[in-house]
């Protein structure tokens, strides 16, 4: 069955360092992969979308990579700040299984320590 795994439930990073979050998937061949941020008590907020033919996408301090051979996406936050503390979700489409909707991972809770 299709499965999405995010590297860990929680990740603590010192302020100023680069935070790297991992999203692995099995039994998928997604055309797109998306990353969202979710703060406590709020809905997810879209951050970045990367297509299967793109290796890397950047937005300000954020960088996403997409390796379809490894079936993995890495999400980097450089020069991390306490305000970056949140839960980060990856999501993939399910085109190849006849249901063209997003499937979300369970998320990684990132804490940036001052």
């Amino acid at each position, binding site marked *: 069955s299709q499965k999405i795994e995010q590297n860990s439930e929680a990740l603590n990073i010192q302020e100023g360092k680069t935070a790297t979050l991992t999203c692995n998937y099995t039994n998928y061949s997604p*055309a*797109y992969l*998306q990353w969202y941020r979710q703060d406590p*008590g*709020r*809905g*997810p*907020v*879209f951050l970045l*979308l990367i297509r299967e033919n793109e290796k890397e996408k950047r937005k300000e301090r954020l960088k996403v990579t997409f390796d379809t051979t490894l079936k993995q996406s890495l999400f980097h936050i450089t020069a991390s700040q306490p305000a970056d503390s949140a839960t980060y*979700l990856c*999501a993939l*489409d399910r*085109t190849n299984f006849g249901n*063209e*909707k*997003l*499937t*979300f*991972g*369970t*998320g990684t809770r990132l804490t940036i320590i001052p």
Partner: protein
Amino acid sequence: IAGITQAPTSQILAAGRRMTLRCTQDMRHNAMYWYRQDLGLGLRLIHYSNTAGTTGKGEVPDGYSVSRANTDDFPLTLASAVPSQTSVYFCASSEDGQFGPQHFGDGTRLSIL
């Protein structure tokens, strides 16, 4: 401010009661979605609508129904609530039913006793 409005923000409901969660968007998006979010399980799609007048089943549709009479509104109804439907419910929208970014409301926290 443009976005998704969900109501109520929270609700405690007796098992067996009927409940409708409301969702309204003002972005004129064609597609709308209902998810539930549970600890350890992440966001799971309940129902979706690619355009007004059409709906489809997601991953966990049992016990829920939806309607899409117009572009802006996408209510979710629990006909007879059960404790396993205790969850946080999120409504979302996107420009179309493909794979573009989804915009989420801030959720309805529902407890079924």
